[in-house]
């Protein structure tokens, strides 16, 4: 099972790839839209990349709840169960 830090680090790589965000800025308390310059279409790209990377499913209605990096990491941990 991946640790919280491993998931965060992988998510940081994905966010960098999609939106060019510095990986060091992708911390649990950061908001994708307000802090990391991720727009709504990039967010969809990040979600799909997470599904592929972590082998989870993130339904569209869940995406609006993933406001911060911490939200996303927590969701992925739960989904990996």
């Amino acid at each position, binding site marked *: 099972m991946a640790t919280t830090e491993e998931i965060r680090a992988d998510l940081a790589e994905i966010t960098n790839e*999609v*939106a*060019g965000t510095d990986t060091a800025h992708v911390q649990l308390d950061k908001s994708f839209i307000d802090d990391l310059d991720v727009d709504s*279409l990039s967010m*969809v*790209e990040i979600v*799909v990349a997470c*599904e592929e990377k972590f082998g989870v499913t993130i339904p569209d209605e869940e995406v609006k709840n993933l406001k911060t990096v911490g939200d996303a990491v927590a969701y992925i941990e739960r989904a990996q169960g």
Partner: protein
Amino acid sequence: MSRTRVVVTGMGTTSPLGGDVASTWEGLLAGRSGVRALTEEWAEDLPVKIAARVAVEPTEVLERVKARRYDRSTQLAMVAAMEAWRDSGLEGAEIDHDRLGVAMASGIGGVNTLLSNYDSLIEKGPRRVSPLAVPMLMPNAPAANISLYVGARAAVNTPVSACASGNEAISLAVDQIRLGRADVVLAGGTEAAIHPLPMAAFANMMALSKNAGDPTTVSRPWDTGRDGFVLGEGAGVLVLESEEHAKARGARIYAEVLGAGITADSHDIAQPDPAGRGGSRAILRALHESDVDAESIVHVNAHATSTPKGDIAEGLMLHATLGAHASEVVVTSTKSMTGHLLGGAGALEAIATVLALSHRTVPPTINLDDLDPEVDLDIATKPRDLPVGDAAALNNSFGFGGANVAVVFGSV
């Protein structure tokens, strides 16, 4: 009635000969071919295995995150637009952005994005279709992204007329300025269709050359050995501006766009009218709108794509429109070096036409070893000087669907 004069104040390109205007012009004058064997694995199965890729990959120039949100046709358009904008001196200048427009054409649109997303759909399912696919593949994506880059808030258009699209964009931009709807318009065309599907389609309709010899010798307009065009990719952008606006800011002016003519053949969906009647009418209208007589034309950058019928038809058009003067005009086909950029062709060739007028040098047509006896034109096979003094030049583009666009440029 006096009319608004429209001038060229900036130019940018990325082409099979170079990543900017200077290197492209150098390549044209040197008679260098940009046609190469395709090294991609998919090319092995195709009946045509050559094309003219851009000399500089756009991803080497653009920011990575921006580039991945652009179809390749937009990537090329952005490289050209950024150079043209810098070159015009308008970057960072205080101008009325509500009177800044874009007319950026594409013949085919974001075909690479469309087809790569179709591959994802089939291989991985609908979830893997990119949420960016639509804004990337839409034909007006290059125009829209240029608008975002320069802050253009007047009309942002995408004329589509196959291989005449780039020239049509220039004509449309001139109209926008003359109608008083804009002071400055970035105009041009882009194309990035070197992909197995369009290549197979063009080959199957017998449009592409199947010559398997040295790739650099395959595009050979007006030569008896020609058997079709070579697909190229690239983009060209010209900054067009009302003379008044340009002079008020002390801009460098390369040339004037005197006028344009647009007609349709209504003859066949793909074949040109063998007598070139529609093209002739476009040239006559362009001369009329430009208020110049045939004798003022010193140079023609021909559409001449290296197809058996089209190259002959264009020769007939020049004789029908320029009369006896047709044999005194220095004609060239830069497609002999760049291949055929489809929707980008008219724009790249407009840049070549403007530079020919301003440098008084016509770039050569390469690979013309044995002139087709049905063609009676003075074709430059080496760089040729143009006379000094007031001069005008004609840039022709013809497209599938019977589209004909002729644009006349004047020296300044």
